[in-house]
């Protein structure tokens, strides 16, 4: 992260509510998101989402429409500009329109909810965001997921699994998803949908079909609780991390779905053993990890890895990189160990 002098109040660095919400709403592929604020706010976020999409080999672009507030609207109010932007969005015949506010619109006091409720031809859904006035990046994600969860309709449970609250900007988002799908397949469990990752508005309605929701991490616990109240779907609070965590995940998921885990666990333990054999050349090494530099707040996942490979962790050891988020599943640990090996052999 770039240098910043003041760490006295960590909530200052938790990002923009608008950005968090946009990572969700722009994943509804037949929708348009209206950003009520200056064009710069929409550009900043569009550029970020576009860049992330390219990293994920996704060449489609999100549909973001800015109300384009300028000095005049700042002085006299921006509700008319918002109405025009929503009308323009609706004219493109999307299945849904999400309206996100910005800190500037919040400061001048525009009534976004009232404008959204003006009888449009498609659902126009305001999502509580207001840049930094709305809270953190994660609050934006949660607000969007929770609001959109309200669109779900009662439906019959078909035994699938929902993946809830993936970090759509995460560089490894697809690899993490693939690892969870692989683990679920060991248990014979299919995925119902990814809430919300490249969904249509109609697909959202089917979020209640699943027998279990698996949350990306505890940051979206509120969304899991909301879906439990609304659809009665139980949830597992986080993706599996580390070696032992992956085995525990298999047991817990199997319990929740009423299936046997023994075969899957044995199979996964064999995969883990084989994977660790591949890294026998770094067994017995001495490493150091700097959680402040690497940004990963949770150390627990490395203990079973270092123990399995008899790697000692000391301040004078070779400094190895940690992933930004804890590695997901056995595959995540393998990718982390490749980076460790590069550092150890450098």
């Amino acid at each position, binding site marked *: 992260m*770039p240098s910043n002098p003041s760490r006295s*109040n960590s909530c*200052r660095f938790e990002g923009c509510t608008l950005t968090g919400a946009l990572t969700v709403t722009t994943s509804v592929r037949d929708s348009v998101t209206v950003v009520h604020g*200056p064009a710069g706010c929409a550009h900043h976020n569009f*550029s970020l989402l576009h860049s992330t999409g390219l990293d994920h080999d996704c060449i489609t*672009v999100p549909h*973001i429409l800015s109300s384009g507030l300028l000095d005049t609207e700042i002085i006299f109010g921006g509700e008319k500009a918002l109405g025009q932007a929503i009308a323009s969005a609706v004219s493109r015949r999307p299945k849904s329109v999400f309206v996100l506010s910005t800190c500037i619109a919040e400061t001048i006091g525009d009534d976004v909810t009232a404008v959204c409720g003006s009888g449009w031809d498609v659902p126009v859904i305001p999502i509580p965001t207001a840049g930094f006035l709305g809270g953190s990046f994660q609050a934006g994600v949660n607000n969007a997921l929770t609001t959109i969860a309200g669109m779900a309709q009662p439906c019959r449970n078909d035994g699938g699994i929902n993946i809830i609250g993936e970090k759509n900007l995460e560089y490894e988002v697809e690899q993490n998803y693939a690892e969870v799908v692989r683990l679920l397949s060991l248990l014979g469990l299919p995925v119902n949908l990814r809430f919300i990752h490249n969904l249509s508005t109609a697909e959202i309605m089917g979020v209640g079909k699943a027998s279990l929701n698996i949350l990306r991490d505890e940051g979206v616990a509120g969304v899991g609780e909301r879906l439990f109240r609304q659809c009665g779907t139980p949830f597992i609070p986080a993706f599996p991390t580390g070696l032992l965590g992956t085995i525990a995940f298999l047991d817990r998921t199997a319990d929740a779905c009423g299936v046997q885990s023994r075969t899957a666990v044995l199979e996964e333990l064999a995969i883990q053993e084989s994977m660790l054999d591949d890294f026998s050349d770094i067994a017995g090494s001495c490493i150091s990890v700097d959680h402040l530099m690497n940004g990963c707040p949770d150390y627990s996942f490395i203990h079973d890895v270092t123990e399995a490979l008899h790697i000692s962790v000391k301040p004078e050891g070779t400094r190895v990189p940690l992933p930004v988020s804890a590695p997901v599943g056995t595959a995540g640990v393998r990718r982390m160990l490749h980076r460790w090996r590069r550092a150890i052999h450098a």
Partner: protein
Amino acid sequence: MPECENPLWPCAMTGAAACLAGFDGITVIIHGSSGCYYYPTTLLHAPLQGTFILENEVIFGSEARLHEVIGEVQGTGKRIAVVTTCVPAILGEDIRSMLSSHDVILVDSPGFSGDFGKGYHAALSVLAPETDPSVAGINIDGVSLFDPFYRGNVREVIRLLARAGVPVGLILCRDRFDRVRHAAPFTIGTDGDLASGVGTFLGSTLGFEALSETFSQIGHALECADVEPVLADIRHEEERVVQACDKYLRRFDPPSVAIFSSFSYAAFAARTLDRYLDADILCIGSRNGIKEDVPYPVETATGLSDVQRLIGNCTPDLVIGSSFERSVKGEATFIGITPPLRGSVRLASHPLAGTEGVLFLIEAVLNACMDRQQSPS
């Protein structure tokens, strides 16, 4: 302002930050929220600072927070520059008065006040560069950290000036801050949209024709200059370009081209491809308005829907633009000259200015067009 779908050009705040952060010796503080801080920081690859204001400061005022951050970054010997963002700008606080006890540069450039260029020039006007008659040489302007070609442009123009035996004056905006009031009396440009107005302008460095005229002007203006080696280089490199384009045209038809960029770069690309490749310039979509008459269809295109419409209407063989255009180019081939250029690794310092700039553009276009012609349909 009408609504804009997927806006493609940064706001005035980012422009001001790009100008100020180009000077070693200035610490730039973005006075606003974390969201307003992170974007220019990632875009400009510059160590910006931020006040990261919260709701509390919106209600009770941001003065204490601003003083806190200034207190944390001062004492390094660098001059502090504060750039205001949208919310502080409308809170009604007298930020200039707040900062009266500090030796601070204040640039009032909130995002809603305009686009990138407006903020860049607002910051430049506050810095108020001045010429110093005792300083010999030529200034280089039009340089911006936002431009992926800025580093290559600076190196290329310095190389050409050295070839002519001319010292380099002030580089706007990529120089030491203590040199701002010591600009040379003459200036040449790498991007006319970001012209500084400092010193006597001798011309552009975009394209062989402009480059020849500019160095001829330098020869007239500076007695110490020996521009003939540069003019000889231009003739030599132009001949290489002619030969390469001629060889291409022996096998293939000229490309039909849609160009999306800032006006200055777009006009340069259009003229170059028209002149050497007989390209059909179907349209220019300018990110920042129309600055002068050009013999090509041109309109302002600031949103992705504008770009999609223009590409859809003219169905070009070749699209020149940013990674936004690459995403909507359809069957056309693509080369990137416009920020942002995401999704590809860029480590080398390619220029668009100077002789090497023309060579880079032509090389990229010919290779892209030949790949397209030769790829199985």
